[in-house]
């Protein structure tokens, strides 16, 4: 018998979040979930679904470049008892078919797992048409949706496997390049709605999600050099928000949120929605895309432009911290 908690970090190194889910984990789960149907809008190759498509041709549908219909067909299949996973670029699966997601998955409660590929500004030189810096905002605005934003490939697999067990529609936001540093170097626990503390500290609490988590681990080290002890939290679940971690961390001088997402409606907004109901929380410094369409370019160029490199994050925290 294979141990259910078996987890090989190396299996996912350098293949990225999407390939880890669709090239590895999905096949491992076919026996457990024989009614799985994977649907895509012409994104099988990009998602790393080729092997699955070959091995399970009857569990795979390509609906062509038609995201609205992708969600409709997936919902129809889900209503008949199939476990459906719909895959497309994050920009299109969250925005082009937003109303379909709201109606079919939210209102009608058809439990489809949506996987948004290449979120944030990972599609670099494709430009803003292909960036998704509003997807968290949109998806979490739908009643009943669960919204996940994993930090690395291993966590993406854990998020996917947790989503398979849920009796609810789920959006999984995939971020970070294929060679993004691994955050979790050994097996760890993953529970939807329960954040993971990566580093302890009493002065500042930094909440990060997705691609920004590994950046922020580095921020913790850099702040130490300034004599500031930072607690670093991986908020892999944007909805439902983990309010326990907010309550448990409130005795520090500053909260910071970091996300590769517009400052409107994402992680920072989620945190502020909760803490502003009370009087005893520290101020929240929200770092992310400042309600602009960035100037396209390479990934590092985009990070720098949006002040999301570890050094820039440290600078911004120091200014706010010393006020």
């Amino acid at each position: 018998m294979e141990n259910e908690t078996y987890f090989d970090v190396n299996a996912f190194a350098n293949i990225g979040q999407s390939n880890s889910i669709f090239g590895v984990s999905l096949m491992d789960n076919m026996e457990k979930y024989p009614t799985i149907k994977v649907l895509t809008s012409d994104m099988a190759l990009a998602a790393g679904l080729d092997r699955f498509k070959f091995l399970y041709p009857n569990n795979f549908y390509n609906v062509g470049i038609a995201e609205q219909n992708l969600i409709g067909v997936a919902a129809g299949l889900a209503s008949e008892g199939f476990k459906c996973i719909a895959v497309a670029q994050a920009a299109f699966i969250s925005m082009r078919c937003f109303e379909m997601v709201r109606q079919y998955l939210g209102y009608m409660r058809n439990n489809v797992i949506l996987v948004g590929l290449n979120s944030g500004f990972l599609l670099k030189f494709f430009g803003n048409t292909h960036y998704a810096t509003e997807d968290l905002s949109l998806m979490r605005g739908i009643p009943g949706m669960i919204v996940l934003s994993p930090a690395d490939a291993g966590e993406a697999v854990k998020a996917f496997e947790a989503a398979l067990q849920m009796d609810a529609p789920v959006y999984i936001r995939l971020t970070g390049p294929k060679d993004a540093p691994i955050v979790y170097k050994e097996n760890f626990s993953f529970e939807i709605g329960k954040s993971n503390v990566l580093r302890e500290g009493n002065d500042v609490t930094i909440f990060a999600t997705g691609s920004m988590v590994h950046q922020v681990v580095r921020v913790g080290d850099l702040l130490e050099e300034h004599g500031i002890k930072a607690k670093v939290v991986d908020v892999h679940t944007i909805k439902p928000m983990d309010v326990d971690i907010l309550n448990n961390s409130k005795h520090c001088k500053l909260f910071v949120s970091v996300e590769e997402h517009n400052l409107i409606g994402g992680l920072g907004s989620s945190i502020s929605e909760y803490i502003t109901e009370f009087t005893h929380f520290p101020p929240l410094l929200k770092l992310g895309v400042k309600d602009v369409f960035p100037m396209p370019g390479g990934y590092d160029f985009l990070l720098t432009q949006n002040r999301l490199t570890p050094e820039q994050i440290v600078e911004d925290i120091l200014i706010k911290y010393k006020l």
Partner: protein
Amino acid sequence: MINYQQSIKNLEKISNELRLRIVELTYLSKKNGAHIGGSLSSVETLVTLYHSIILNRPNGLEERDRVILSKGHAALGLYCALESIGLISKEALDTFEDNGSQFLAHAKRDIMKGLEFSGGSLGLGISYAVGVALACKDKGLNNQIFVLLGDGECDEGLVWEALMCANNFNLTNFTVIVDYNHLQSDGPTEEVMNLESLHDKFSAFGFKTIEVDGHSIKDLMVAFNERSEFKPNAIIARTIKGKGVSFMENKRTWHHGSLSDTQYKRAIEELNNWNCTDGE
């Protein structure tokens, strides 16, 4: 042997009863009003489907034929049709458009009552129905999926994504009926957004397409029975918006409306007269 003449007469009678009930519930909804025009135009299609074509509960729920109302604003017509086959009770439907009632202007999914889909946003029913048809085919069910589409609804791009998809997956268990009443909110479909040739469009999308008089039970029965087993099917039902009530017929203002006491009396009178004159 089924006596077709008798059967057609019977369905015509049921159609008239459905119209009376649609008018009654619209009147009872008072100022809220109802989508009466498009409900009246789809009456014969609904009656033919529910009373002659579909198998509602053949061997339990799983094998049932599924009717998906994509033109969700005809929910009132659908409720009345489901009441006529006993899936919705009169007491329940009498709450139409009351505060907190299950029976709103747009249906909410409730499979036990025959409501397969939460309609309202146009174009969404047909795409969902493609998924349902794909699932039924996959499960090896020997059932049929029917989708009632509005003509104005065909302006939606999603309709055409879904049609392309139904053909691509060779959904021979899939039939689309277009309630072609030639009117949408802002006026005649020909003026707002020209659909012609709808027949050619459906054919080009790989559907076996038949065009019929959508108020002729006989024509509808023939069309349903002549469906292809090798292709998805489309039936373009030429209808009149507001059919059966003279002052509503072909009037776009009756897409959604409420009835005054006088209008109600006149409508009921007209429908009752239809009943008498048909008795010869």
